């Protein structure tokens, strides 16, 4: 009977034991282990074959193909992939802080100006060409 279950004084709000089977914790960890394994595989393959692409990107492509070929893999990975992707912004912060090492001189200004110049061109050309090419081919109108 749920009402007679003794309340744990340390975790009074913890759910009843029956709702979280011990095997449950293995699933996200299995997914993370698989993602780490694929990253390793990508790194090993790129260095062994002398490919000039980042190992993680090769891993991404391999995983995308595997997800297509092995549908059960989607259940193993969906939860852990969501967790890692939610934390991705946090992971890029140390790399972003490295920007503080750059000297803000005239070269810095020229670099930033080139960025903005290319940005405004890119966004206009991209948006207009997508609109032009995809017009009439969407499955349903917006």
């Amino acid at each position, binding site marked *: 009977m749920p009402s007679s279950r003794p309340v744990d004084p340390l975790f009074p709000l913890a759910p009843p034991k029956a709702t979280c089977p011990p095997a449950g914790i293995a699933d996200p960890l299995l997914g993370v282990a698989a993602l780490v394994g694929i990253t390793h595989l990508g790194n090993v393959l790129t260095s062994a074959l002398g490919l000039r692409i980042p190992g993680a990107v090769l891993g991404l492509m391999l995983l995308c193909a595997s997800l297509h070929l092995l549908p059960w893999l989607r259940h193993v990975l969906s939860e852990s*992939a969501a967790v890692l992707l939610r934390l991705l912004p946090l992971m890029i*912060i140390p790399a*972003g802080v490295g920007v503080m090492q750059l000297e803000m001189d005239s070269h810095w200004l020229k*670099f930033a100006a080139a960025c903005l110049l*290319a940005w405004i061109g890119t966004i206009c050309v991209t948006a207009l060409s997508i*609109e032009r090419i*995809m017009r009439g081919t969407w499955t349903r109108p*917006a």
Partner: protein
Amino acid sequence: MNPPHPSFWSLLFLTLGAYAAGTMAYRRFKQHPAAHPVLVSLALIIAALVLSGAGFERYREANQLLSLWMGPATVALAVPLHRMCVQAGPLLVRLLPLTGMAAVGACTLTAAACAVMALPMADLWSLSMKTTSVPFALGAAGVMRSSTEWTVFAVFCTGIPTAVAGPWVMARLGIRDPRVIGLTLGITGHAFGVARATELGEEAVGFASFGMVLTGCLLSFLIPLAHHAWAG
């Protein structure tokens, strides 16, 4: 195992605490694109490091625990990419070459901007990955052995204007379709563009992340290849 440097935990806490503050600020400012958690935490961390006099090298070492997970997280992007590919169905035949053309076109415009500003060749390789997300850009910079700081700077210099002004620019061009806006935000503004696409609805986010991942994959192939062909 060697005990960590005394400042290890404080420097790791700095990142996590600043990011937590950044998420709160983002919510407080009603998800304004300029208050993106990454930008707020970067400002806080750089200010703290400059004021305390702690060097970047020590900070980088302490936070390897976080940055090394970028590899598996990049691989994890295959899950949303695969989901979008399934959802797009027959449209994929048109979307794939379209995204590819847009990514290559972005690089051509980057080269033109580099020439206008008379920047050296080394900067072109850093700038050419600017429409990809940080993990892709860093991966390609590692392969080409170009400067990671300049590469990340270029990525931020492209992502921030896209998130802040991207939809405004497209509205001036007369583009109203949220799917076109989403895809363009993803292709030109990577993760910042995807964050901005959330206000346009679920479908726009899907197109934006599709554009982001595809552009990242494609340029991670093409730019190191072009670099190899150029530099030998």
